[in-house]
């Protein structure tokens, strides 16, 4: 079998398929289960400085082409989460702590206090007031938050970018200037659904983020643009449900790929995707490195 190991944004991964933030990342046990099911790394639920209960329900709506969610960053705060990270780290894959805040010092305080293999800065959640994309759509804030976390942490720092912007490359370049070791693209697309029986917005928060198959072409385009302009690695995420999707994302330029919504089918997706990639590489006599960014080298 061809090797699937990659060096991605400062981490050595046994394979490039990671569990995305916000999916089954609330407990050490569920993160560990993803690791044992074959994930090359796992990202925790986003952690802030104070406990948050999140938005009222409904927190998800299944739509024709994907999933809408507005969980609202529920978390027990970073102060009550080290134990879960430690449990997950005992399961043999890198654990990336997703963190959020509303200003640079809040991010760096969390990064100083938590022990993880890397940090992923949530500058892209589209449905939490004062957090996520409310900062992450401004390149200068992306740069200053990234710089602050880099200065207070000695592990790799990834920046998760929002697609709810005119030019995601501007945001990626800002993360790079701030010293990021990698960017993660994309978070969900801001979206809503309305109950036509009554006119009520279905999500408790009215607005949420769209994930799943509907956003994969958007994610592929974002990864392609970022990979062609940035020096740092791009981790692709958005609508990856099968090995073919992962191959497409790697061809767009992704060094690693995260899987989220597809976990609705269960933990088996990791093994399905990694096995599919290995067979593909074997059939094509290609390495992951040769595959990465192939679309960009095919010219325009």
């Amino acid at each position, binding site marked *: 079998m061809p090797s699937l190991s990659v060096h991605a944004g400062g981490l050595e991964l046994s394979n490039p398929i990671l569990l995305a933030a*916000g*999916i*089954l*990342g*609330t*407990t*050490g*046990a*569920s*993160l*560990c*289960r993803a690791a044992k099911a074959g994930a090359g790394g796992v990202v925790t*639920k986003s952690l802030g400085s104070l*406990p*948050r*209960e*999140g938005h*009222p*329900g*409904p*927190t*998800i*709506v*299944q*739509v024709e082409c994907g*999933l809408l*969610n507005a*969980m609202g960053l*529920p*978390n*027990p*705060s970073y102060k*009550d989460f080290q134990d879960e990270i430690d449990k997950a780290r005992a399961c043999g894959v890198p654990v990336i702590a997703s963190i959020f805040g509303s200003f640079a010092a809040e991010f760096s305080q969390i990064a100083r206090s938590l022990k993880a293999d890397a940090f992923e800065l949530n500058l892209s959640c589209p449905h939490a007031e004062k957090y996520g994309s409310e900062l992450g759509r401004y390149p200068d804030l992306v740069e200053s938050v990234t710089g602050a976390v880099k200065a207070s942490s000695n592990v790799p720092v990834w920046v998760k970018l929002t697609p709810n912007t005119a030019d995601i490359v501007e945001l990626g370049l800002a993360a790079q200037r701030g010293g990021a070791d990698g960017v993660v693209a994309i978070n969900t697309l801001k979206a809503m*659904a309305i*109950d036509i*029986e*009554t006119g*009520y917005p*279905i999500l*408790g928060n009215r607005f949420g983020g769209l994930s799943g198959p509907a956003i994969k072409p958007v994610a592929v385009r974002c990864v392609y643009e970022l990979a062609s302009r940035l020096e740092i690695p791009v981790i692709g995420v958005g609508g990856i449900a099968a090995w073919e999707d992962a191959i497409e994302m790697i061809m767009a330029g992704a060094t690693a790929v995260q899987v*989220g*919504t597809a*976990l*609705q089918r*269960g933990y088996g997706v990791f093994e399905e995707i990694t096995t599919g990639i290995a067979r593909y590489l074997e059939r094509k006599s290609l390495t992951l490195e040769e595959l990465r960014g192939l679309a960009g080298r095919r010219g325009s």
Partner: protein
Amino acid sequence: MKPINCVIEGVRSEAPLIRTFRLEKNLDPAPGQYVMIWIRGVDEVPMSFSGPDTITVQSVGEATSALFGLGAGSTVGLRGPLGNGFVLQGKRILLIGGGVGTAPLAFLGEQAKEAGCEVASLLGFRSKDDLIFQDRFESLGETIITTDDGSLGIHGRAAAGLKELNLYDWDQIYLCGPEMMMWDIISRTREHAQKTQACINRYFKCAAGICGSCCLDPDGIRVCVEGPVIMADRLLESEFGRYRRGPTGGKGPCRG
């Protein structure tokens, strides 16, 4: 799926804080399965079925008190039926329930009796005023009742009724109620854990197996999709009866 619109056809008071809502739609649930009920403009919460087209609800918070404000003719949104319900095993079954947790057991017992099973029940309530579904259980077979205050039946919690039963007589045991009442039963009847199906409760947000808020330590069982009915032997060495996570994901004490 998106929530489907459903008319509440009738509401019946069972006890001071417990009501049964009859739904216009029969979603063909298995006993032990649940439905996410969207009380529009308020919240979406999981509810167990007490019959093919009924849910029985105890008023405990904002969402349930909003639901109690809805009468016949009002509408709610529904997602379900969801999760894994009870599986009927054997010919002689024992139901052990506490409080409003007796609701899915009444539903299960009726299906079991229909299928030709012998059914007995051990039911615990706080006091005689909190008793629900006495007639439904008594028409299934032998029914032992306990009350915490001794106002009816055996004085004590449900486990106090265990001495009236020989658990080896029963092919399968079905359990649902407040967590500490269930833990009390499971921990006293360890040798029967492999034939005990427990319908448990955790904090559900997505009810789709992806957000992680209901995962049970130490194996990370996603209760919303792999449960809510779980074999008791998997609970014995778990967080069940020891702690539970709340809406933030932080650990807190178990109730009841």
